[in-house]
C-alpha cells in the first residue's frame, strides 16, 4: 500500500472546483441517510460522555507506548487524534477496543467497564477500521458488510443449517441493510466485486461500511484518508459528517491537519504516549507546543495551511458543533 497505488484514472489534480464527482465521491444521498438513520436508531447529539478512558498506560517491554491517557468522547462528537508517527495513537485504539489490555487504567463505555475481548467490544457498540486495511480480501464487498452484521443478526447455528423462514427473514434484513450501507459510502455499484479488486480508496470506504454494519454508537477510524488524493479526502470528510449525523460518535486518527481541523469538534494531540494538548481546532492550531512537538515547521507555514483548510469550508452542520465544543 504505497503512494503510487492511490493513483487511479479518476485521479485528477485540482478537482475541488465545481466538477461533477464520480458517484462514490459524492456526499451520501439524503434519502439513503434518512432510511439508515431510521434503521440504526442511534441516539443523537446529547453530548453525554459515551466513551471514556482514565489513566490508560500501555507498556511494551521497556517501551512506554501510552502514558496515563485520559479522555472522554461525548455523544454526537467528532474527535481528532493527531501526533507524530509512533506516538501511540494506534496503540490507544487497540486499548480501547480490547485488542490490547492496558497495563493500567480503565476504559468505560456509558459508564460501564469496557469488555476485554474485541468481539464483545464490537457487540457493546464500538467499531473500528484499521490503519493497514484489514478487509476480507476474497469476499465480495457485500459479503464483507454482511460479516459486519454478524453481531446484530438473529440467526443461530440451527437456523443457519435449516434455512427456515426465520433464516430468510434475517438474511433479507441483513442484505437490505448492507445494500443501504454500501450506497451510503458510495459503493453501491461494487457490491459483487471482490474486496481485493477494489481500488485503495474504495477499500477504505468499504472498511467503514463494514464497521457501520455493526450498528456502533462509537466509530474509531485509524487514518481513514491515508493514501487518498484531495478529492477522495474531501469525500471522506463529508462521509464522516454524514456518519455523525446518523448519531454515531467518531474518533479519527489522521496526519492531515487541514482535514482534522476542518472536521473535528475537538482535537487531542498525542506525543510520545502522552496527551500533550486538548482543545478546539482553533486552540490546538495556535498552541506553540503542538507546533514544536508535532508539526515541526515554522508557524507561518502552518498558518497558511490552516487558512487554506478553512476556506474549503466545513461540511453539514460541522461549524455549529465546533462552537459548542471549546474547552
Amino acid at each position, binding site marked *: *500500500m504505497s503512494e503510487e*497505488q*492511490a493513483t*487511479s*484514472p479518476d485521479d485528477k489534480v485540482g478537482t475541488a472546483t465545481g466538477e461533477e464527482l464520480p458517484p462514490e465521491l459524492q456526499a451520501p444521498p439524503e434519502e439513503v441517510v434518512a432510511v439508515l438513520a431510521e434503521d440504526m436508531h442511534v441516539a443523537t447529539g446529547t453530548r453525554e460522555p459515551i466513551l471514556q478512558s482514565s489513566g490508560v498506560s500501555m507498556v511494551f517491554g521497556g517501551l512506554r507506548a501510552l502514558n496515563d491517557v485520559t479522555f472522554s468522547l461525548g455523544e454526537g462528537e467528532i474527535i481528532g487524534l493527531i501526533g507524530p508517527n509512533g506516538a501511540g495513537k494506534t496503540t490507544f485504539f487497540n486499548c480501547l*477496543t480490547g*485488542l490490547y489490555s492496558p497495563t493500567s487504567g480503565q476504559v468505560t463505555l456509558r459508564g460501564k467497564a469496557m469488555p476485554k*475481548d*474485541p*468481539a*464483545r467490544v*464490537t*457487540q457493546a457498540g464500538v*467499531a*473500528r477500521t*484499521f490503519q493497514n486495511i*484489514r*478487509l*476480507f*480480501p*476474497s*469476499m465480495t464487498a457485500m*459479503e464483507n458488510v*454482511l*460479516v*459486519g*452484521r*454478524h*453481531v446484530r*443478526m438473529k*440467526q443461530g*447455528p440451527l*437456523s*443457519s*443449517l*435449516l*434455512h427456515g423462514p426465520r*433464516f430468510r427473514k*434475517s*438474511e433479507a434484513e*441483513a442484505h437490505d441493510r448492507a445494500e443501504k450501507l454500501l450506497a451510503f459510502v458510495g459503493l453501491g*455499484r*461494487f457490491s*459483487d*466485486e*471482490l474486496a*481485493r*479488486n*477494489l*481500488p*485503495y480508496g474504495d477499500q477504505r470506504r468499504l472498511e467503514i461500511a*463494514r464497521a457501520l454494519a*455493526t450498528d456502533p454508537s462509537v466509530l474509531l477510524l485509524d487514518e481513514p484518508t491515508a493514501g487518498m488524493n484531495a478529492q477522495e479526502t474531501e469525500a471522506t470528510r463529508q462521509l464522516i459528517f454524514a456518519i455523525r449525523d446518523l448519531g454515531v460518535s467518531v474518533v479519527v486518527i489522521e496526519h492531515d491537519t487541514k482535514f482534522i481541523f476542518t472536521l473535528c469538534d475537538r482535537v487531542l494531540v498525542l506525543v510520545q504516549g502522552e496527551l500533550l494538548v486538548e482543545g478546539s481546532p482553533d486552540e490546538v492550531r495556535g498552541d506553540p507546543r503542538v507546533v514544536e512537538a508535532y508539526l515541526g515547521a515554522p508557524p507561518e507555514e502552518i498558518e497558511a495551511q490552516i487558512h487554506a483548510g478553512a476556506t474549503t469550508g466545513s461540511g453539514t452542520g460541522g461549524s455549529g458543533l465546533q462552537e459548542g465544543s471549546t474547552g
Partner: protein
Amino acid sequence: MTAVTEAPPASTPETAPPRHTGRLAGLLGALAPRARLLGIVGGVVAILGSQLPWATFVLNQGAYPELATLPFGFTGFRLHLVILGLATIVVAAVRVPAANRIVRNLGIGIVAVAVINGLYITVEGGGLGAITAADGAVAFGSVVALIGGVLAILGSAAGGVEPRPELDWNLPLWVEWLLLVVIFVLMLLVVAAALTSGGQGGVVNPYSGAVFLSFLGAAGGAFAGLNASGLLGYVATLSERHRVFSVIVLLIVALGLPLTSAGTEYWMTVASNIGVYAATAIGLNIVVGLAGLLDLGYVAFLGIGAFVAANLSGATASAVGIHLPFVLVMVISAVVAGIFGAIVGSPTLRVRGDYLAIVTLAFGEIFVRSAQNNIGGLTGGANAIPNIPAVAVGDFRFNESITIGSVQLPSGVMYYVLIVLLVAGVMLVFGNLKNSRLGRAWIAIREDEDAASAMGIRTGPIKILAFLLGATLAGLAGAFFAHKTGVVAYDSFRFLESVTLLSAVILGGMGTIPGAVLGASILFVLPEKLREFSDYRLLIFGLALVLIMRFRPQGIVADKHRRAELAEEPEDAAKEAPGPLPTRVEP
C-alpha cells in the same frame, strides 16, 4: 494492487495477439499463418496413428487391448483417438470461437492417450523396440499419435490461445430443462464408463490400470475441450439458474447408476466407498475449506463413527452387546464423533496455524494407537470388529439384490441408494451452512482472524463449531461405512487416509461441494483401478497432485473466491466482474 485497467466487454472476447517469448518464439512466429492447417494436420495424424499397430509383439500377460499388434481398430483407446482427432479437425477447420484453445486441449488429450499407452507398452515390453520396430515388425502407432497431438498443440500456440468465451442463449424454459436432463444423463454414462473401463482389474483384465488411465486422459482432453469452448460454463450457468431443478435431476440421475454398465455388486461397493469418502471430505471441507483450519487427523472421526456403530450393531465381537435400529445408530455415531470434534477443536482457542495442525496430527495418531490396542475392548484391536450385520428393514437386508419387474438390480444397490441420499444430505448441510451467518463467519476467520473478531465474531466458539460439525458429518459416514463393509479395523483410519482426504479437498477445489466429491472420487477410484501398478501407485498419485497444483492451483472445481485469487489468466478475473463495471485486474 489498484492499477485499474479497462477490460474489454465480456461479449466481445478479444483475440489476444500471440505473445511468443524465448526460443520457441521464432518457430511459433513462423508457424502463425499456418496455425489452422497445423490443427487439421495434427488431427489427421492422430487418427492415422490410431490405425497403425501400437505394439511389435504380444505382451507377456496376453494381447494388449484393442489388438495393439494389428492395424485398424475402432474400439477402446483407438476409438478415443479417432474421436479426439475428428473433433480437432472439425474445430480447426470451422474456426468456432476459441478454436485454438479447444484445439490445444484436445491436443493435450491426444498426447495423454499416446503417452500413457506407449509408455505402458514400452515398460511392459522391455524397451522402445516394443513401440517402434523389432523382429521385422513395425508399430509406430503411439509415436505417430503423439506427433499428431504435438502438432495440434503447436498449431494452437502459434495461432494464439484465446480467452474462454462466455456463452448464453435465450432459450425457452423447457429447452433449458431438457438440456440439463440430457447433460446430466450423459454425465452419468461417462461416470459409468470411467468406473467400468478396464474392468475390475487383476484377474479379469491384466491391463485394466493402463486402460483406465488412458480413458482418463481421453476424457480429460474431451472435457478440457468442452470447457474451452465455453459449453461447460454454459451448463454451469444453466444449473445455477435452475438450481432446485438441477439438484433434483442430479439426485435422480445419480440413483440411476445401478441401471448402467456399472450396475454390478462390485461397482456398487466401489461407488458406496466413494460416497463414504465424499461425505467425509465435505465435512473436512467445512474445517479446512471454509474456516481455514488445517486438520491432519480428520479420518479419526470417520473411525469413531464406525466403531461406535460397530458396537451398537449387535455384532458378536462388540463389547456393548446391544442392537439398536440403524437410524438411531447413525445419530449416536454422529453425536459421539461431534463431541470428539469439539474436544479436538478446543485447542484452536490457544493455538493457530501450524501448531493446530500438529495437535490434530497427534489426535489422529492417538486414535489409531488406541484402536490398535483395543482400548476399553471397544475396537477389537488387531482382530477388528467383524460380522457387523447388514442394515435391515423388516425382512429385507440391504446387501441383497432386488428385482423390480423384469429388472434385476445388483446386490448392495440399497446401500448405494442410501449413500447417495446421505451424500446429498451432507451437501445440503454444507451448502446451507456456507451461505449463512455462520458460514460467512468461518470464511471471515479464514481470511483474517483479527479483523473477524473486530467485527464481533467470537472466533473461539465458532472455530470449535466448525470442528464439531465437520466431525459430525464424518461420524455419520462412519456409521454407514461400518454396516456396508461389515468389518471395522483400526487399519482403515491411518494418517495416510487423512492426507488423502485433505488432498481430495484441495485437489477438487477448496470450499466447493462438487470439488470435494470429485476429489474423493478420483483419489479413491485411482487405488482401486491401479492395483496392478501398486508399486507405483503413490508415485502416480503424487505426480497427479503436483501437476494439478501446478496448472490449476485453485483445484478442479474452483470456488468463486479462490478462482479470482489464484487465477493465472486474466480472463478468469475478468469473469468475476458484473457486466457494466470496469474490471479491475491486479498487475
